């Protein structure tokens, strides 16, 4: 009897905690986004959608995710392949490659600010090479695409490591015999990568892509550090509505939009990278 109740007792604290602080707030946020002073109202969504910044914020957020995630996928795959091939100094390089894993997005934004700001290293380098006389204001509103590139660089720099770690542990699960068989049949390194590594890496690719895409849709501090509010994104607008404009309902409506896109993205990757039943290693 006692041992039947034990697992439930052990799960109880975490379950109660998640119900109170995860499930309940989500119900609340959904309610806040469709309520006004007098009960149910679509006003928050109308206010949000008709505000001039909504479409630009949505557009920039989607564009950032669409640019950042594929770059990261390619980089993470290359880094993971390199790591699995390393024989000498594997631990050292693994540590170096994973350093950004522990860094916050705000710190990453500040780090790339040091490079892109007016008296920063990019300007200093261009000056040293004799290309420019006066420092250029890279991060001003006239140069919105430079801000965009700086954000992409900072995001790629910071968050590729997490993808790499997931892919490295996925690659570790692929049996060596598969590669040996591939070699026997004359497949070169690239063919083995495409025909063996990629298909068998599907579960890891799936979780890496979901994790990163959701995080990319939540991009906030990097953008604030590099561009202020010049380049609006959804999470930044949520913050603005909550704080500067003091309207919780519209902020919640923004949150629901981010949530909806996240769910769509998750389903997309679950479907596209579906692992056939019984095909796991």
């Amino acid at each position, binding site marked *: 009897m006692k041992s039947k109740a034990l697992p439930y007792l052990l799960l109880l604290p975490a379950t109660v905690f998640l119900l109170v602080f995860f499930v309940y707030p989500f119900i609340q946020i959904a309610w806040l986004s469709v309520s006004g002073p007098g009960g149910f109202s679509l006003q928050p969504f109308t206010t949000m959608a008709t505000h001039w910044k909504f479409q630009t914020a949505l557009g920039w957020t989607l564009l950032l995710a669409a640019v950042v995630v594929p770059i990261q996928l390619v980089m993470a795959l290359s880094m993971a392949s390199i790591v699995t091939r390393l024989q000498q100094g594997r631990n050292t390089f693994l*540590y170096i490659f994973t350093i950004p894993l522990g860094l916050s997005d705000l710190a990453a934004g500040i780090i790339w600010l040091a*490079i892109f700001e007016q008296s920063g290293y990019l300007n200093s380098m261009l000056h040293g090479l004799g290309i420019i006389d006066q420092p250029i204001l890279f991060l001003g509103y006239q140069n919105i695409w430079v801000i965009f590139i700086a954000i992409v660089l900072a995001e790629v720099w910071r968050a590729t490591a997490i993808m790499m770690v997931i892919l490295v542990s996925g690659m570790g699960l692929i049996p060596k015999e598969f590669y040996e068989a591939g070699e026997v049949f004359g497949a070169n390194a690239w063919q083995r990568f495409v025909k063996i590594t990629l298909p068998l890496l599907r579960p890891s690719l799936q979780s890496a892509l979901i994790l990163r895409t959701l995080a990319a849709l939540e991009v906030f501090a990097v953008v604030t550090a590099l561009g202020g509010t010049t380049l609006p994104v959804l*999470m930044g607008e949520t913050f603005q509505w*909550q704080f500067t404009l003091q309207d919780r309902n519209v902020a919640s409506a923004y949150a629901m939009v981010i949530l909806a896109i996240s769910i769509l993205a998750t389903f997309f990757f679950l479907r596209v990278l579906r692992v056939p039943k019984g095909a796991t290693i």
Partner: protein
Amino acid sequence: MTDAALDKPRPVEARSAGRFLFWAAVVLISAWVLVPIYLLLVNTLSSPQQVTAFPKSGVPGWDFGSIQFFMSFAGVLRALWNSLFVALLTMILSIGLGAPAGYALSRFDFPGKEVFRMLVVMTRAFPLPLLALPLAVLFIRTGLDDTAIGLAIVHTVLAIPFAVLITFSLFSGIPLELEEAAWTLGCNRWQAFRKVVLPLVLPGITASAVFAFTISWNEVFAAAVLTIENRTLPAFLIQNLNVSPLHLKFAGGAAMVIPALIFIFAVRRYLFAMWGIANR
């Protein structure tokens, strides 16, 4: 790439060219990771005048003016202390709640197991910092607003899926036979756990605790939404971003980066075990 030549020996030059390319890639990626951090540290170790000067040199001025300014700036020390305190609370909460759940998942088969797993996996599919918005209301009602414990609760929601999945994989790695042996030798369930299992998983638990600490230490959005007086360092920095001088930003960035570097170094052995299993 180089081992493609196993069965059909290629000319030596082609092989060493491949090796050269491989190592060039390794060095290039390392530089891509390390140089930006180095530049931040150069800025931090230069005087405020050197930070805003143009053109800038690539070596530190070895002046502690920026650091002094940062440390004596109103609210910084308190923000550092708040960050530390919230992160410690998060660490305790997420392991305290997550580890028993991980143990239950690894040792028992019971109805409802899958429901709980779904709940945990679901938390990873939602933009969690957004929880801060409704919780702000709840906290004001319960008096938890603007407190370390309130923020630590939100950070624990972020950290708990990892704590559960990591401890689950750790406990799964300990054979049940070890525990059973202890039971036959007269230990009860708790004694067997404390004397046999706990010593074996303790390093891994520490690693996942450090991971929870890092999650909290780095979190910006919820911290900025939920705190006003008791700001953590990231919240303090993002609130003052457009009014603070460059050298303050850089010193603040370094203050966030350096502990993170140490943490990742401390848990590097567990990173792959953690993520490898957390995936499945």
